[in-house]
Structure formats: C-alpha cells, structure tokens
C-alpha cells in the first residue's frame, strides 16, 4: 500500500498507488430460453489457458438442462418459423453487426482458450461474422432453390416448398469453436428451425455468442447453448422424442452410430459427422428442411 511516502502531486500519487481493485471474472453460464441460468446440477468446468492459468468457470450442462433447452426450443419454434423470411434475414444480419462490435472480446477469449495468436483469432472471428452475413442472405432465397413448381397433367399448380424441420439438436465441432459453432447453428436458423447446441471447445466464445444472439432481436429460445460434455448430453438429445433433427457434425469422436440409432427410434433427420452436406452451401441449409407439396387449382377463365 502507498503509505510510506506522502506524494508530491496528485498525478504521481495516482500512478504510484497500487490498485486495490479486484478483478471481476465472468462465470460463463448456460443460454436457455433467452436467459443465462446456471446448470441445475450446480456443476462447473474450470477453464485454463495453455499455460494452466485460470481463465473462467463455465457451467456444465446436465440432462435436465438439456430437457429445459428442448422445451424452450419447442416453445420458440412456431414463432421463429412464422416470422417472415425477410425478418429472419434481418435478425441474422444483426447478429453479424453485433458480433463485429464485440470483436475484441471474442479475439481475447479465443486467444486464451485456443492458444491462438491475435491475428489468427481475429481471422476466425471475421470468418464467423462473414458466415452470419452469408446465411442472412439466404433466408428469403432458399425457397427458390429448394422449392419447385412441379409439372402435372391437370389444371393445377403443384408446388413444393421447403419448411423447417423443427427443433434441431446439434453437436458442434470441437476445433475453431466460434466458427464451428456458427457453421452449424446458422444454417439451421435460416429456414426457421430452433436449436439446442452443445458447443465445442471451452464454451467461452459460445456463451459470448449467446450474449450476442440475446441482443440481436433473436427471440428467446430460438438458440439454446449447453456447454458441457457432449458424450453425456448427446444421447439424451438423440433419444428425445420432441427433437426433430440431429446434427452430429461435431460428434466424430463420439459413438455417433449409437446416437444415430437412438435418433432412428423417433424418425429424426440426422446429419452425420462424415460425408454430410458441405458447409456454406444451400444443400447444408436444405438438409434441415422438410418438403411440403401443395396442389392448387388453376383458374379456368
């Protein structure tokens, strides 16, 4: 403490005085239904940087958290699917805008948790931002690619249109946590699905992305993020009857065949970790849609 000497000027006193302020480290919690609750289990994972120094505590989601997340996603689904495609595009673009404004925070978190240089971390964040913009553009165009006016032998219009599958459970890639998470969440959101995702990596940038989503006019419950052990959570999500699709892109290290079998019991659409649709393609977006075909009479006037 600065008690030994009486300082001469105010400025030098301020400079000499050691700070008594304590850091306020952030606890990274779950993101469910637009809120940031702790895990009902009370568990946390301690995250350290490459040199073993403490970075943060991240809540570790449990089976019951997954259940709540699915419930929130189901509740939000009709509203998100019912929003106009234009509106969904605006919201996804807003995510990119807000992410841009908080770039420094994400760069910092990625440097700490993935051991990246500032330049490489920035590159990942920028790639993620660009990917949000790319998907934002597709919301009102994907129906033109995935839908069709089918030729029929009669006085009818026969139209096929892609519709969202519903609630999608996702195991996100482990590597490049922010970009990986964006690459699986954004394509599901484009058409109006809602998402329960187990992020890869330490979970820091995933929950910070949750904060971005929460302030980007994305309705609560559309994206639910559950940092935790994918091997523990994925079977519950794969077997959950109220989940409509299972995206196993990041589940290459798990027993994903078992998960696929669990999902088959309730006829879920499954994206496998191998030979799935390529990222950043319309096919990747259409992989989480169902085709609805309608007949409509043509006027005979």
């Amino acid at each position, binding site marked *: 403490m600065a008690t030994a000497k009486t300082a001469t000027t105010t400025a030098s006193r301020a400079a000499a005085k050691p700070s008594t302020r304590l850091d306020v480290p952030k606890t990274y919690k779950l993101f469910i239904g637009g809120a940031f609750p702790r895990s009902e289990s009370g568990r946390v994972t301690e995250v350290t940087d490459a040199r073993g120094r403490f970075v943060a505590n991240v809540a570790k989601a449990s089976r019951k958290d997954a259940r709540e997340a*699915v419930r929130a996603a*189901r509740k939000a689904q009709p509203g998100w699917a019912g929003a106009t495609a234009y509106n969904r595009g605006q919201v996804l673009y807003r995510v990119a805008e807000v992410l841009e404004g908080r770039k420094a925070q994400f760069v910092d978190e990625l440097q700490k948790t993935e051991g990246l240089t500032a330049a490489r971390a920035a590159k990942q964040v920028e790639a993620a931002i660009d990917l949000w913009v790319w998907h934002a553009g597709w919301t009102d165009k994907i129906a033109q690619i995935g839908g069709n006016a089918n030729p029929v032998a009669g006085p009818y219009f026969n139209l096929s249109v892609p519709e969202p599958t519903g609630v999608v459970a996702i195991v996100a890639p482990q590597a490049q946590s922010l970009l990986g998470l964006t690459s699986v969440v954004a394509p599901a959101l484009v058409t109006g699905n809602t998402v329960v995702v187990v992020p890869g990596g330490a979970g820091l940038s995933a929950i910070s992305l949750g904060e971005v989503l929460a302030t980007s006019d994305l309705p609560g419950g559309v994206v639910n993020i559950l940092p935790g052990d994918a091997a523990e959570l994925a079977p519950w999500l794969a*077997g*959950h*009857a*109220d*989940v409509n699709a299972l995206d196993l892109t990041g589940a290459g290290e798990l027993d994903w065949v078992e998960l696929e079998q*669990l999902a088959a019991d309730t006829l879920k659409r499954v994206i496998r970790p191998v030979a799935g649709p390529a990222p950043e393609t319309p096919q990747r977006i259409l992989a989480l849609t169902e085709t609805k075909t309608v007949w409509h009479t043509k006027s005979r006037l």
Partner: protein
Amino acid sequence: MTTPSQALAPAQRAVQLLGGDLSEVALRQHLEGLPTVDAVGLEARAASFGTRSIKTTSKAAALDTAIRMIDLTTLQGADTRGKVRSLVAKALVPDASDPSTPRPAAVCVYGDMVGNAVEALGSAWSAGKDDGINVAAVATAFPAGRASIAVKLQDTRDAVAAGADEIDMVIDRGAFLEGNYGKVFDEIVQTKEACRRDDGTFAHLKVILETGELVTYDNVRRASWLSILAGGDFIKTSTGKVQPAATLPVTTLMLQVVRDWERLTGERIGVKPAGGISTSKDAIKYLVAVAETCGEAWLDPHLFRFGASSLLNDVLLQRQKLTTGRYSGPDYVTID
C-alpha cells in the same frame, strides 16, 4: 366407477351435529365459531409438500394414482358432441402406446352433454357398478350459479335423468359473502334431493366452493363445513373459470376439514381441486398433501379427484419417460 351414496337423508348431518331445530342462528354460530386459519402456517405447510423426493418406483406409482383420480374435463361453450366423444375416447385409451395405462375416474361435461358421454362410453360406463368410468355433470347454472333455485334444480334433475353419476354444483357465493348461510345451506340440501334417482339412490354430489371468490381462508373453512353439513359427498375448490383456481394451501385447508369431519363422525368426505393443475409435478404435490393430511387411505378416487384436462397428457409424457428411459414429446400423446 360409482360411489355408493351416503344413506343419510339430506341435511341429516346438520341435524345430528347442531340439533333438531336446525335454525339459521345455530348454523351461523357453528360456522363463525370455527377457529380461524393460520394463513402463514398453512402456506408454509403447503410449500413444504413440494420438497419430497419422489423418484423411480414411487414416481411411477404416483403417476398412475394421479391418472386414476382425474376427472377428465371439458367445460367450454364451444363443446360439441364430437369433442365429448373424443374426450371419452381419451378416457378409454389414455395412451395407445401402453395398454397398461390406468383410466381416469370420470369424464366431466356440461349437463346437456351427459347423454352423449354415456353413449360414447358404452359398456365402460360405470352406471352404478364400481369398475367403470363415471360421468360427472356440472349443474346449478355453472359456473356463476346466478339463476333461480327452480332453474338450478331442474338443471340438476335433467343431468341425473340423463345418467350423470356425479353432480358438480356451485354454491351461491353472493349469498355466502352476504352472510346468508341458510340460503346456501338450503340450496345444497335441495340440490342433494334433486340428485335422487327413481330407484331411491343418489347421484354423488360435489359442492364447488369457488375458493377464488371467497377471499379468505376462514371463508373457505366455513364454506367447507357448510357444504359437508348440508350433505355434500365431495368438496371441490373451483369451477376453473375464476382465477385463482385450485391452490395447494386452499386444498390443504379443505383436506384438514374432511380429516376433522372423519375424526368427529367417522364419515369420509372427498376433496377435488380443480383448475390450474396441469403438470405431473403439481399433481404429485397434491398427492403428498393428501397422504400427509388425511392419510394414505385418502389416495383413492372415491375420496380425492383432480378436475383437469391438460394434466392427463403431462402425466402420460412423464409415464412414457419412465417406461422408455427417454424424454417424450407432445407429438406422442393425443390431443383431446
């Protein structure tokens, strides 16, 4: 299932307890002489029922017990014959994926739908036996009860004649709040009389207190005693049309009254919370309240019922979760 009605003539309980002349003064003195309710203690007690850990086999037993106690209800102005038929179908086969699922105790409909419900139940209708599904009808100008006594009694007789096994009547809350206990008492006695079938047996009478309009716990206690004295076989919290409907403290209070009545006379009265109980978790809290207030003997559809519509589906989802080990979803139960 049918409950054998009490052999007592209407109002006989009051005569036995209060004396032969049965004056309004005697009734008032008895009701207003009841001890007041410790509201803080009651609410704390009710809150404590939610803290029991009921898992695995106990939970499975609790869920099945809850289903057996449900009065599956549809009370909408927009009810159609088709709606009643589908409600009955739901009561007959609650969960098509599991034939071992028990059936609810009764279906509860408006009086004019009793015939349709009886017809739809077919051989599953209890009709006096103890092994079927009862038809309960709301009567006496439900839910407000604002009609002349002649209209209320005719409403009741119509439902009984159409085959209703149970009558859910509403008390005149206006008269009760005015302190006109005699009028409320007489109406219950007359409605009980109107529940008499041609063969001399009685349809089971449930008396709806509409606790949300009685304002205080003391009033709920008085109305409970009043209803029992006048001949009610069940006391029921609410119509479901007024908020707040059934709450755990109010139901606990009513359970305490029937427990006291049993200690006094040896006679068992039923309790039916209705309205707002829509999750298995809530239902299990009520079962705990019953077991810890009146004893496990009361965990019987003759003595405790849930008035509910969406509760059944939630219980079925929980039941499926226990059976399969995986979470189920609303796509896997029927919409009634």
